[in-house]
């Protein structure tokens, strides 16, 4: 090898070796850099990434408590829970992600019927803030065919899931809704009022009635669990769990048998029946007709169905039992009579000659009795039995406003005394002051006359009238009017037992002369059993005595609307039939108020329904009483 070549060879080798050293240096530097990077992540940022990792895999999930059940007085289920299978989409899992929503909906529509309404509400839910990979509900309460259709075609629908949840179910559906109320999906307005933590897993809240009033008892306390999930949100294991406390079970005084009977009696009518147990103040039945199905509100009623309900001129959504303000008509006569004699203004043996009309002044306006030609000589007893208007024109004219208001209030009119029906209204017990404020006029004697026969400005709800019947039946003894009988099997005497505010109710009515109760009772028994009694036909052929008072409210006028047809208008001008009463006459077990709108007179339209309710109550008691079939009993 020549020297020169040797030299270049050595030079080249040196250069190569120096570049190898350079490579080594590079390797050492870069590896150090990598180690530094990893150390930065694994040591410096360790705490941060451990938290991220735990956040990733561990999720605190709220666990919804099971809503408390509602039973009737005999333990029959009135409101339970059942599984509802909901069709949901996980937008992130759809082919095409969120942009694939429309395509997925179109595909789904071939398998299961999804209407525009469902899609509209789905889109609204989709646009609310939500955790990635959480399902968004499209349709609730799938039926078995739909579940099968989707399951069979599952492979075609990645990202579509059927999610079961427990929802409220009302086995009796219609007929009970005005007594129980219902639950519905929580909306924005509810959210503002609810405890966000306790409701974090809950979809439904009591919207109306008992369900609404006892929401905090029925709901229970939310539980939570820490779950380990994978990236797709599937729960792999539960790490720890605090069980939710289920809602408390309510037992109501409501008797499903009676309630059904009441709903049936009102079938095809507009009206209400409220029955109360005079011994406890518990509501045995509370029906309002027409009614509607409660279950459709649980999972969300369709817009069209809701519109039909809301716009029906029969007002099915209107709870007549609690909110219907009717002129009580002649049903107040026993109380007006008591007001007269107990206040000392009217002598106990006061009587009038009834020519069939009454005049405030000689030659003035004729206030007519319902019976042309009149009833002849009328005392208090006869005035109740035959419902003589002129007698009451006379005594209310003598009494004037205050004594009547005072005594009607003692029996619960003009106030809400039912403890656990938040929708109840107090109607109108018109004082002179009330008239000045609301009518900007002073109280005229004519107003007193109208009030004396339960017309004019006076109005009352069926619940108030049933309460009045109870106080009459009890000879003045009051109980808190309430739906609830027991909670988790423990008797509830007042809603204050549950930490709620008791509504004020009047003190027990004590008359100056207790025998006056007997006089009124005798007269009200006469209504049902005397030959001339207005409820005589309804009181006939019974094994027990009953007491009652019919009423017929004149419908003074209704708003005329172009859409009403003539027949309907004529029908709507008919009198309301009313009835209050109790049975048996001694030791009563049921006090009742019945109202049939435009049903005609109280004796023919309302009293027969009350009689059927009385019979049903006797029957219901017999079937539960342990001595019911005891021959010596």
């Amino acid at each position, binding site marked *: 090898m020549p020297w020169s070549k040797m030299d270049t060879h050595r030079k080249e080798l040196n250069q*190569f070796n120096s570049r190898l050293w350079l490579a080594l240096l590079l390797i050492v530097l870069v590896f150090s850099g990598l180690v530094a990077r990893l150390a930065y992540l694994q040591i410096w940022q360790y705490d941060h990434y451990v938290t991220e990792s735990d956040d990733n895999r561990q999720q605190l999930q709220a666990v919804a408590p099971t809503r408390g059940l509602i039973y009737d007085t005999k333990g029959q289920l009135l409101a339970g829970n059942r599984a509802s299978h909901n069709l949901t989409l996980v937008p992130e899992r759809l082919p095409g992600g969120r942009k694939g929503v429309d395509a997925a909906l179109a595909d789904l529509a071939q398998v299961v019927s999804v209407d525009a309404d469902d899609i509209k509400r789905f889109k609204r839910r989709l646009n609310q803030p939500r955790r990635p990979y959480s399902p968004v509900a499209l349709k609730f309460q799938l039926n078995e065919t739909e579940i099968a259709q989707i399951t069979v075609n599952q492979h075609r629908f990645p990202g579509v899931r059927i999610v079961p949840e427990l929802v409220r179910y009302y086995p009796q559906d219609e007929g009970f809704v005005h007594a129980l109320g219902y639950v519905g999906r929580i909306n924005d307005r509810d959210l503002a009022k609810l405890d966000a933590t306790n409701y974090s897993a809950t979809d439904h809240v009591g919207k109306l009635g008992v369900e609404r009033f006892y929401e905090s008892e029925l709901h229970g306390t939310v539980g939570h669990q820490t779950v380990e999930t994978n990236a797709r949100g599937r729960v792999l294991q539960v790490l720890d769990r605090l069980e939710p406390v289920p809602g408390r079970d309510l037992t109501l005084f409501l008797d499903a048998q009676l309630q059904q009977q009441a709903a049936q009696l009102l079938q095809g009518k507009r009206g209400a029946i409220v029955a109360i147990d005079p011994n406890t103040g518990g509501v045995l039945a509370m029906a309002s007709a027409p009614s509607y199905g409660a279950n459709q509100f649980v999972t969300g009623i369709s817009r069209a169905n809701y519109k039909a309900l809301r716009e029906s001129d029969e007002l099915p959504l209107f709870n007549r039992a609690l909110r219907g303000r009717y002129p009580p008509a002649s049903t107040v006569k026993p109380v007006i009579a008591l007001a007269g004699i107990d206040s000392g203004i009217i002598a106990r043996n006061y009587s009038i000659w009834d020519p069939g009309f009454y005049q405030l002044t000689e030659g003035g306006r004729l206030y007519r009795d319902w019976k042309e030609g009149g009833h002849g000589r009328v005392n208090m007893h006869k005035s109740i039995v035959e419902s003589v208007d002129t007698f009451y024109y006379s005594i209310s004219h003598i009494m004037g406003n205050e004594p009547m208001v005072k005594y009607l209030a003692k029996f619960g009119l003009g106030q809400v005394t039912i403890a656990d029906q938040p929708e109840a209204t107090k109607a109108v017990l018109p004082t002179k002051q009330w008239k000045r404020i609301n009518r900007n006029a002073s109280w005229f004697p004519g107003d007193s006359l109208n009030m004396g026969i339960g017309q004019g400005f006076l109005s009352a709800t069926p619940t108030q009238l049933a309460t009045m019947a109870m106080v009459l039946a009890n000879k003045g003894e009051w109980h808190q009017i309430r739906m609830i009988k027991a909670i988790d099997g423990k008797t509830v005497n007042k809603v204050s037992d549950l930490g709620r505010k008791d509504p004020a109710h009047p003190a027990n009515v004590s008359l100056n002369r207790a025998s006056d109760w007997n006089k009124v009772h005798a007269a009200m028994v006469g209504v049902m059993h005397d030959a001339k009694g207005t409820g005589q036909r309804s009181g006939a052929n019974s094994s027990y005595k009953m007491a009652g008072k019919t009423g017929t409210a004149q419908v003074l006028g209704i708003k005329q609307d172009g859409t009403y047809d003539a027949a309907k208008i004529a029908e709507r001008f008919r009198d309301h039939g009313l009835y209050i009463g109790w049975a048996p006459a001694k030791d009563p077990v049921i006090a009742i108020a019945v109202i049939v709108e435009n049903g005609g007179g109280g004796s023919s339209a309302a009293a027969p329904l009350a009689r059927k309710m009385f019979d049903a109550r006797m029957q219901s008691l017999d079937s539960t009483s342990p001595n019911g079939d005891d021959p010596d009993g």
Partner: protein
Amino acid sequence: MADFQRLAPEARKHLRQGPGVWVRLKLDPWLLILLLAIMSFGLIVLYSGSGASEAAVQKQLVRYGLALLGMVIITQINLRLVQRWMPLLYVGGVLLLVAVLLFGVGAKGAQRWLLIPGLPRFQPSEIMKLVVPLTLAWYLASRPRPPHLTHVVVSMLLVVMPVLLIAKQPDLGTSLLIGCSGIFVIFFAGLLWRYVVAAMVLGAAALPLLWMGMRPYQQQRVITFLEPESDPLGAGWNIIQSKIAIGSGGMNGKGWLQGTQSHLDFLPETHTDFIIAVLAEEFGLVGVCALLSLYFLVLIRGLIIAAQAAHPFDRMLAASLTLTFFVYVVVNISMVSGVLPVVGVPLPLVSYGGTSAVTLMASLGLLMSIHARRPQRT
């Protein structure tokens, strides 16, 4: 004492003849032990990363067996003979790459595979991982070194052609590795520093051009890399989740099979490109450093082999293959730990998959072959 002095050279001779079996097999025991250690470590991690799948481990074991066999065969080849056939191999390789673009099959929008009846389907780009450095070494070995500008330009063309063809498949990771392997050969041929600097400046200037030449999904990867939080559930997911996996592993890791990120599906590609995140999560910084140490020893061994090689072809090839191995490791770990954008580069000898294992073992086989034929110092 005298006896010892007299006997000592004999003993040394014996010592050298001791590993004669290795010499006869043309295998380097150091490299072999290191790569077996890496593979064993890899299988342990793979078992975890594949979701405790014994099938995956068995399949990988078979691949390793085949790859080892391939390596042993490669070491038997006399590189002087290979040198002679290089032009033909290069032309054949480039033609195969063209064929891939014309008739290739693949998945996820990339055409990488070639189906030739009678042969198992394969990726010509993998072959080019060996052919490109071999070709460059062949070309520059018979030219004066440091290479003249014309030779540099020709060399660059030889590199750029397959790189562009592969980038068009598209397979950014592989084209990057192949480009590196070629450039390393040129660098070790003694490329003058002024050319090196000029190339770097040109490269920087070409970046916007490169950007415009990228497919949308490749551009997306770069954007995601620069700002992973911009799309945490989409493109940024991989990087965010692998960083969480690595970071939450801490110093000692969560324990084998205990990695929540990997076992609960938060981490993507747990047994392929992102397997180092599984390792980091379950074995911590200690585990990653252990693996990096093994890689480091492989690289040192590669550099020693390059230093001891006599023939310029051998030297340049050994150095290039060693540094390419280094690039594999660095790019993979950097992308998984969020230092580089995600390009599909597997972790050598650890990631699940047969093709890259075979190619890598073949390149290690070439190293061994070079070492077996080094000049024996006496």
